[in-house]
Each structure stands twice: as C-alpha cells, then as structure tokens.
C-alpha cells in the first residue's frame, strides 16, 4: 500500500472512531438528562426553617409511559398543581419539608418489617388519613403499599394503602390517579439537611412487576420508585 493510501486509511479510521465516541457522548450523556426536577425552592430562604409543601402520589401503573405496568410516583408541580411524572425534586436546605403522599396502590407485605416503622420525621410520626401513626404492620394487615425512604438522613415512611379487599380490587387504572379513586392520605414533616447535595430516595417494597422477586424495573429506574431530593443552598 502506498504512503498516501496508508495515511488516508489512518485518517478514515480515526474519524470513524471519533464519530462513534461523539455519538455515544451526545446520545447518552448530553441529551439523556433524566426525569425533570420539580423545584420547591422558589421564594424560600434556606436555613430559616421555613416550610415547604411537597405533594406526591404513588400510582399502581404508569399509563403515561411505555411501561404501563410499572408502579410509579408522581410529583405535583408547585405552581400549576399538575401531576408530573418524575421522582426528582429540589428543596431548600435547613427547611421544614411537609410532604403529602396520596397512596393509590394496593397493599403488599414489606420484605423487612423494620421498614413499617416511621423514622426521621418530626416526632417520628406521620398521619394516615389524619390519624397519627408511627408503625404499620404490613404482614398482619393490608396496610402498606410502598415506602418513601431517604436512608442517608434516616427517613423512613411506610406509605399506607387502602385497607379493604374491595378497595384493593378496584384500584385506579389510569395514571395519574384522581381523588375519586380509592386512596389514603399520608402526611409527615422533616427537616431538610443543611448540607447541599443530592439525597437519593427509594421504595423498599419489591414492586417491580414481572421482575425476579420484584427487584427490577421501576425499583431500579429513576422516575418510578426511586429518585433524588436535591437540597439547594
């Protein structure tokens, strides 16, 4: 092979490799930003203990995506009050975070009963339909659908489910669910950390329908049963 031919081959090979690298970077790193982040930091001064209200719902399916049989959380936009299919939200540091979760999914026994205990909230308590509760037994009662846990700050909330056989047999079938569907209302408050950063949260019930022991799918995908709480300074 002549020298010009060799040089040309080398240049073509280099350009091909560079093109593949550029494609991977653009496709998988620059454009896939993940689910949106609902911002609850507006008009709140961090580290003042000011209250922030976050409203979420967990739904038995995700009919707004291509994975309709995956369970999921939705977060209500603080301005429009529209339900957004995301599990990422940002809150101000050092603030009192009041969370309301509408629980539309049916009951499932906890894999570890320890997570039936409420921890990390103000007073280590929550309310279920207005009733103060600190512990739910998900084995002896139809009581827990999912959990909302931020392990790094010790927060653990067993999210209550509708309790009757009838309600669990007539769960909401289109997401996001509406107030007319059977549901529970869970409320709790906690203090956001003073340290700025991302704090992941997760469900501790293996709720990945169709995946081995329920551990895959929505359990491993941000935007469904796990996400990030961004703490902003």
């Amino acid at each position, binding site marked *: 092979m002549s020298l010009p031919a060799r040089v040309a081959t080398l240049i073509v090979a280099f350009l091909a490799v560079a093109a593949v690298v550029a494609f991977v970077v653009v496709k998988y790193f620059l454009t896939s930003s993940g689910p949106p982040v609902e911002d609850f930091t507006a008009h709140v001064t961090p580290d003042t203990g000011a209250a922030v209200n976050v409203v979420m719902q967990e739904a038995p399916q995700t009919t707004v995506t291509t994975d309709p049989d995956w369970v999921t959380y939705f977060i209500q936009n603080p301005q429009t009050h529209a339900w957004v299919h995301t599990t990422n939200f940002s809150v101000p540091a050092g603030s009192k975070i009041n969370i309301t979760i509408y629980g539309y999914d049916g009951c499932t026994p906890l894999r*570890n009963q*320890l997570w039936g205990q409420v921890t990390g909230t103000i007073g280590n308590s929550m309310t279920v339909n207005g009733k103060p509760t600190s512990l739910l037994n998900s084995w002896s009662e139809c009581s827990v659908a999912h959990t909302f846990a931020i392990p790094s700050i010790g927060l653990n909330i067993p999210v209550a489910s509708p309790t009757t056989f009838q309600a669990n047999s007539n769960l909401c079938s289109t997401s996001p669910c509406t107030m007319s569907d059977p549901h529970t209302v869970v409320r709790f408050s906690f203090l956001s950390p003073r340290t700025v950063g991302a704090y992941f949260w997760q469900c501790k019930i*293996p709720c990945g329908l169709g995946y081995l022991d329920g551990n895959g799918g929505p359990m491993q995908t941000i935007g469904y049963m796990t996400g990030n709480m961004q703490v902003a300074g």
Partner: protein
Amino acid sequence: MTASDQPGQAVRREPSHGLRMLLIWVPLSLAADLVIWFVWYPHLPPGRMTDVAAGQQFDLAVLAICGAPVILFIWIFGVYATIVWRRRPGDNDDGPPIRDNKRVSAAWIAVTTALVLGLFGFGTYQLIVPNGAGGGQGASPAWAPKKVDLQVQVIAQQWVFTYRYPQFGGFETPQLVLPKGSVIEFHVTSLDVIHSFWAYQLGVKADANPGVDNVAFAKPVQTGSVVVRCSELCGLWHGAMFDYGRVVSPAAFLKWAKTTEVQLASVTKILPPFALTYDPTAIKTLGPVLVKLGLTGAGGGFYGPQVPVQP
C-alpha cells in the same frame, strides 16, 4: 577486533558485575525492608482494630518485605545493565557471546521457588488463623473461636445493611455498634439480591446471599469508627450502600444495647422470630385481606414467574 585485542595493549580485565550488583542490592534491600517494617507496616490497611485486621496488616507487611528485594533486584539489574553495558561511541563490535551459567540459573530457580512456595504456605496458614481471617466461612465455619461473646446478624437489602442482636431480644437496627474485647460472630445474609458485607476497619468481608447464613468472626481490640460498604454490585444505588459503625467500650455497648432494645420494642414485636436466614416470599402470618388478595409473601409470591414479563 576490540581495542584490548590490539597488539601491545594490555587486556582489560572484566570486573565482577555480579559482586557489584550484590553490593548495591543487599544494603538497598535491607534498607527497604527496614522502612517497610518500621515505617509502612503500622500504617498499612486495614489497621489493627480487630485481631483479624491486625492479621491482614501483618500479611501485607510480610508480602511487602518478601517482594521488595525481588523488585529491587530487577530494578538494579536493569539500571546497572543500562549504564555499564550500554554501547559507547566508536564501539561497533558485537558484544561477547552469552553463555549459560548453571549456578546462576539454579540459584534463581531455587530462590524464586522457595519464595513462592513459602508465601503459598504462609498465605494458606494465614487464611485459617485467626478464625478464618475475617472472611465468610459459610454456615458451618471450619475455623471458629472456642468462645463467642456476641452474635450479630447482618441483613443486607437494597440498599442498606441492618443489624440484628439476638442476645438483646432480637432487635434490628441500621446501626452497627460493637463492644471492644468481645469475640463477635457475624451471621451475614440477604433479603433480596447478592450483596457483600465489608467492614473495612474490622477486617471482615463476607458475601451476603439470600437464603444463606455466612459466618465470620472478629475480636475488636480498639474503639473507633468503622466504615461498612457493600462490595458486590447490587443495583442502582449500590454506591450509596454504606454506613458507619462504632466499636465502643463494653459498658457503653451494654448501655446502648439495652436502651435500643427498649426503644425498638414495638417494631421488634412485628419482626419474624430471629432466624439465621429469612424467606420473605413465604410469610406465615399474613392477615385475612392479604390472603384474600392472593398475596403470599413480599415479592416472589406476588410477582412470581407466572407473571409473563420477565427481564
């Protein structure tokens, strides 16, 4: 024809290169080993918080002491050869012919064989003593201490470790607290996927497999903080699966354990009885609504293989 072969010129006597290298190698090796033993050894991981951690630190020091002279020999030979046997300006002749030196070859084979076999024996022995060297030994440990002071069950789950203390009513907590001076028997298991319990400063590393009781031993001899990490890729938040344990005085441990036992009494009541492994897919005491809904356990039973969508 080299310059030394020219008529009328004296034949240059080749110096004893082996002796030269030996004279460089011996003091340097001695110095390196002394530095390793007296300076590096006390700071080698994982420290001396437990008997097994101290054993691992000693093993690393021995390996370093054996390895340093070998590495130095190779480096010295390379540097010496590069300097002394380099081609000099005007030297266009071939080098001297290379001949086999049976004594050198035999010595090299004998020394390296002795070193490798010696370290093999040493390493095998150190894996056994003391008490399995902090590694998980399965359900029936072959190398167990004569007496165990405290049992701690390590339960791994996505993405947190919890610890159960059967000698204190079987309470379960995300906090790992251990007393100094007690022989600890860890029973490591998992509730979901495969994890691995790696308590770095304790020198304990044991796989956490669902349905398996993996036993490891350690005796803390110092108080302090312990970093616990999962060392088996276990899902989305594997990187966040870590916590900090503590080794405290026996009195402080007793106080903590008794206080925690009382604080967690209500949740301990609803935990399953202490067992060496748990099967969350088959719960014996399900409530009537759960039974009517056809739920038999947490995962598996509900989302079992009968569900058509599989990854």
